[in-house]
């Protein structure tokens, strides 16, 4: 929800203004919104706010792998599910509390991602997308069919809400603050990751992985790390979801959820973290705002996605479009200053 100051290769974008936007957003998330929610004091609004925050985290984690590293990931919801199931099973079978399940959920999701990534990360473009789709569906089938362990379609009731070292945080406001704190910290972490040299290495994979490989960027390893990290944050989101709703079932983690998360990243603009966050808020809050339309809500998700791809191919705040613009300018400059005979051919810039 913050750290907008580090947007892309900002560098000279002004240190002076840098702290203002994040401070405002922190103020909004931790003071204005809770005050508003407490003012209305309806459980439903809290639910929506928490849901939106969780999807902000999911969208941000997808941003890391799809937006920054440019890998089309079609099975993200499955890792979200792995996190949620880890939290639920640890709570219901071993009686562990939120403070233990939160990191463990992330770690288990990351471990699963790492294991499935080992054989599949060498794939590129559409093959990668298909592999992630298959992995996501396999994990979903396990959640659905391994009835002894996951209780199958019946789902699991999570008995314990949020708590911190034995201190219960299961009131409405406390739940909201817990979710907001975890999501904010995670988003800051993702922001630091994606706006660093590390993030730039991932971007180089997105732009041209063969070229990056030739330059000495270890593409396979980086892809695997991005995939695992994003699964870690998805697992954290899953743990939040499990403790927040108190009940999870495989239906929450099916393919359409992966698509919803993907739509958030695409609508917001591939490669832009603020974009991913705005996309998540848009696609969660818009259907809620359109409740009057009843059944048409889900169509709206599809339509928003379609129109945004059609009219804003780079999304609301895409950084790719900015790169393209620079590239076109540079490409033109390069051509005009080229030696006379080869004018108009362009070298290197495609």
């Amino acid at each position, binding site marked *: 929800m913050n750290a907008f100051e580090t947007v892309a290769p900002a560098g000279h974008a002004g240190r002076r203004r840098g702290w203002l936007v994040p401070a405002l957003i922190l103020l909004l998330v931790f003071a204005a919104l809770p005050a508003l929610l407490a003012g209305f004091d309806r459980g439903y609004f809290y639910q929506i706010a928490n849901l939106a925050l969780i999807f902000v985290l999911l969208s941000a984690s997808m941003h890391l792998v799809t937006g920054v590293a440019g890998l089309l990931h079609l099975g993200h919801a499955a890792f979200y599910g792995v996190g949620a199931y880890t939290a639920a099973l640890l709570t219901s079978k071993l009686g562990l509390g939120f403070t233990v399940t939160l990191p463990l959920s992330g770690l288990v999701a990351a471990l699963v991602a790492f294991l499935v990534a080992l054989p599949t990360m060498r794939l*590129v473009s559409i093959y990668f997308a298909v592999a992630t789709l298959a992995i996501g569906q396999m994990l979903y*089938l396990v959640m659905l*069919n391994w009835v002894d362990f996951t209780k199958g379609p019946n789902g699991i009731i999570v008995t314990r809400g949020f708590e911190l070292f034995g201190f219960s945080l299961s009131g409405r406001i406390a739940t909201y603050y817990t979710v907001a704190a975890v999501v904010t910290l995670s988003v800051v972490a993702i922001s630091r990751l994606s706006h660093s040299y590390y993030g730039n290495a991932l971007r180089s994979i997105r732009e041209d992985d063969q070229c990056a490989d030739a330059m000495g960027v270890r593409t396979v390893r980086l892809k695997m790390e991005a995939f695992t990290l994003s699964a870690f944050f998805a697992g954290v989101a899953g743990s939040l979801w499990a403790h927040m709703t108190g009940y999870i079932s495989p239906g929450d983690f099916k*393919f359409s959820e992966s698509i919803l998360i993907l739509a958030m990243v695409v609508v917001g603009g591939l490669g832009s973290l603020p974009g991913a966050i705005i996309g998540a808020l848009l696609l969660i809050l818009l259907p809620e705002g359109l409740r009057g339309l009843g059944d048409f809500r*889900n169509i709206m998700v599809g339509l928003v996605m379609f129109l945004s*791809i059609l009219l804003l*191919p780079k999304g609301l705040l895409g950084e790719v479009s900015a790169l393209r613009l620079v590239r076109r300018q540079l490409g033109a400059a390069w051509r005009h200053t080229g030696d006379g005979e080869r004018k108009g051919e362009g070298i290197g810039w495609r």
Partner: protein
Amino acid sequence: MFDPYYLQQLAIGLSLGMTYALMAIGFTLIFGVLNVVNFAHGEIYTLGAFAGLVLISATAPPIVAVILGALAIGALAGFSLERLAFKPFRRFTDEASLKSRAMRESTLLSSLAVSIVVREALEIVFGSQMRSIPFEYLINTPVRVGPVILVTGDFIIFGVAAAMLIGLQYLLTRTRVGLAIRAVSNNPLGAKYVGIDTDRTIITTFVVGSMMGAAAGILMGLYYGAVFPAMGFTPGIKAFVAMVMGGLSSIPGAVICALILGISESMATTFVSSGWSDMVAYGFLILTLIFFPNGLFGARRERV
């Protein structure tokens, strides 16, 4: 000796595989021509099935007319899908954007978006519950062949699928339209230079591929007797798996792999519960991608 039960499962598997093959051909044709994956293909299957259902409940025509009606709807759906989700992204025709990954992925996402809209629209119109096909249209009258009990549906599916495959083969190798399709899928730019109307060829490809998808949908609807808006998703994935296993651009490869998938899936239900049988397809997909990245029958490709 052989248990007749296995032969029966084999027959079911073949019928299943044939419908996967029909869908996989649609995927393969479109991938060949445009080099993109059409994620809305599963919805074409659903639309075909619903077209049949509407036709049956409205006028109760003979079964041949039902299938023809589904084919017509499939053709229409393919045409509009191409216009809506694929045409707008071919604005740029220079070579760089033809090769650009971003362009390809945007059509992938736009077809995905169209598929969401179509599925949700069907849910609003018909409800998300299963709708059953009237009893007299079900193609499951038992037929005894030696020790095995088959149903008429097995024969009908096999017959229709075989007829469509032969028709496709004729279209692709003996007609000018087929020649154009093959030319565009071989080299879009070259085809354009020699004066082929690539735009029209792409539409034709979508229409042909979608007709096959819709035929698969109505046949499966009549076979199982149930039609519902989300029915296209699983066969769509399976057909996609078959296409990848077959090597993306090989039609015979896709058909053979679809049959393998169908048979292994129906055999798998003998050993594990039906819930797990979907695992077979995904397992095949992952194994193919890891060990035969070019597909089992595909030509060599530069990168996978």
